[in-house]
């Protein structure tokens, strides 16, 4: 049996047995839906339906219904895309990178973080899709034998790299998540009594029986998937940043973008995990599994990545001056003192200053403060993308075409709508799926459970 130093905080609180873990997670699925859940899903479905309506209107009319203009040809659409993809990064980071580093605390949060990843990537994928205008021909981005003209898709273009990156990221994350879910679906299947539910979970569990050889393969598959998902996570957001970095627009054309975007993505992803899990642990009574120590660990990741983002902001400013290129300098002077300086300073405050509060142990371990700051970070990271995208293009080389971007009601509706769709999907997950990785938590109960650690001390 694996032992752990006594001074390490236990990861599972209370006097839990293997059976208690099953009951705590499967119990809420077997019971009827709580009132709070019904209220939340009603609200988010209404927002989702409004969002779908806006998307349909957009597709029927054309992307002219967005506030884009001649100068600002890319605004909320790509901002929302990058924001959602960034949020998606925490799930894979938690499940893959932390698995490789053998961080046991990930087991309480990885399942829901991965679910968040998948739903966030779906939301992200909506934006380039609808931005094409004619979404029904979106398969033209694939390298198909070309009867449409004489050209193939352009493999030199970062936008095409993005097609490959996002689709690989989505499908690999989905498979990674599902492979971990199968044994837990089997646990639910074996406990369900209602015939329909039993049948449904039986289908979902693929006939999993927990044989020794299967577990042996399961662990190998998880490890190899983690090993290849780790560089995948870094590559995906690097490629997203290259959508900008390989262009020749001052403010975008910077080599710092890939690492800067990746740490920004992890930063915003962890903030979203905090926002969601702090609600979920309360609503589903998971306080013994996701407790202050987990929140503190995540806050430490937030300080580190938030500080990297802060350094990147300052480096950008310095390099734009040091480069001696007039256009480059102007792009950044305009960014912090021009018409969009309000957005720049919101971004600076939310992303650089506020996470530094987590250096105080009291704040880092306070659930209320964490929840508030996680929302601040989510807002800040949305503004980061907005600032990078809109301020770099709203004043181009030709002053007569300088302009500003004003979102229309459809811009706002589509964005808010994706939050609604995301919320609906996540609430559905929380109701019907095992929200904790049961099979993984059971493996750490004896080494990191409070009762076992106490027994070990008294021994």
């Amino acid at each position, binding site marked *: 049996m694996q032992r752990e130093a006594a001074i390490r905080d236990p990861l599972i609180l209370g006097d839990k047995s293997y059976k208690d873990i099953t009951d705590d997670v499967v119990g809420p699925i077997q019971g009827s839906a709580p009132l709070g859940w019904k209220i939340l899903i009603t609200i988010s479905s209404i927002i989702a339906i409004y969002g779908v309506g806006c998307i349909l209107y957009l597709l029927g009319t054309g992307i002219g219904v967005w506030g884009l203009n001649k100068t600002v040809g890319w605004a909320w659409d790509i901002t929302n895309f990058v924001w959602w993809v960034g949020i998606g990064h925490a799930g894979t980071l938690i499940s893959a990178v932390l698995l490789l580093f053998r961080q046991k605390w990930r087991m309480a949060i990885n399942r829901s973080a991965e679910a968040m990843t998948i739903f966030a990537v779906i939301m992200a994928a909506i934006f380039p899709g609808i931005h094409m205008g004619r979404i029904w021909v979106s398969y033209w981005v694939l390298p198909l034998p070309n009867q449409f003209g004489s050209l193939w898709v352009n493999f030199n273009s970062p936008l095409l790299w993005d097609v490959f990156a996002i689709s690989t990221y989505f499908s690999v994350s989905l498979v990674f998540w599902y492979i971990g879910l199968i044994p837990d679906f089997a646990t639910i299947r074996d406990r369900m009594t209602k015939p329909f539910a039993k049948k449904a979970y039986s289908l979902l569990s693929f006939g999993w029986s927990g044989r020794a050889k299967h577990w042996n393969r399961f662990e190998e598959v998880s490890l190899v998937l983690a090993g290849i998902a780790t560089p995948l996570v870094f590559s995906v957001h690097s490629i997203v940043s290259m959508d900008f970095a390989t262009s020749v627009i001052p403010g975008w054309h910077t080599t710092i973008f890939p690492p800067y975007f990746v740490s920004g993505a992890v930063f915003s992803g962890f903030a979203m995990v905090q926002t969601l899990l702090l609600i979920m642990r309360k609503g589903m009574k998971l306080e013994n599994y996701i407790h202050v120590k987990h929140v503190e660990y995540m806050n430490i990741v937030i300080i580190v990545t938030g500080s990297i983002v802060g350094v990147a902001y300052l480096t950008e400013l310095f390099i734009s001056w040091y480069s001696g290129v007039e256009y480059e300098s102007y792009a950044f002077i305009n960014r912090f003192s021009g018409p969009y300086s309000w957005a720049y300073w919101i971004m600076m405050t939310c992303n650089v200053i506020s996470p530094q509060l987590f250096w105080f142990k009291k704040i880092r371990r306070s659930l209320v403060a964490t929840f508030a700051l996680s929302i601040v970070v989510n807002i800040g990271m949305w503004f980061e993308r907005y600032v990078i995208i809109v301020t770099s293009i709203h004043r181009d080389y030709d002053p007569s075409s300088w302009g500003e971007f004003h979102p229309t009601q459809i811009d706002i509706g589509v964005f808010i709508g994706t939050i609604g769709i995301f919320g609906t999907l996540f609430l559905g997950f929380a109701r019907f799926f095992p929200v904790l990785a049961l099979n993984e938590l059971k*493996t750490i109960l004896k080494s990191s459970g409070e009762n076992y650690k106490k027994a070990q001390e008294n021994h």
Partner: protein
Amino acid sequence: MNKVFHVMYDDDDTLKDAASALVAKGIRIKDVFSPFPVHGIDPIIGVKRTRLGIAAFMYAMTGTSLALLGMWYFMISDWPMNIGGKPSFSLIENLPAFIPVTFEFSVLCGAHGMCITYFLRNGTLPGMPASNPDPRTTDDKFVIEITTDQNALGAAELEAAIKETELFELSTKDYK
């Protein structure tokens, strides 16, 4: 008539001790059913390490080759395009621009190839029936499966050896 024994334990460490004790007596354990991966059980019951990792590597290399071959054909051989003056007449010269897609496609093929192989080798596919002997094995119980046809010992001797371990429950079934 052959007999199958399903010996249930309520703890993973007891399970491992029991399995070691049984194996020491020369008894062959057919399978172990557990709610989570019990570390250390594989060498005791003789489960070898899976070769799925090697399979994943081969799938990934297939992806690498296909991606490079495809991009060579699309961008160099079939219809070279001049895009911003980027080199378009040789794969090597244009390779830096092809690295991202090559990497992504290798990961795509490696991950999915491995997962499909995993499902097929396990026989865990949509609609397959569950084969664990007791529903509690996905909750908090552990079952060792021993059959008479894989063992030289008779049913009575096996049962006696099994009863020496700290078992929780024992069920026996006849099968042909």
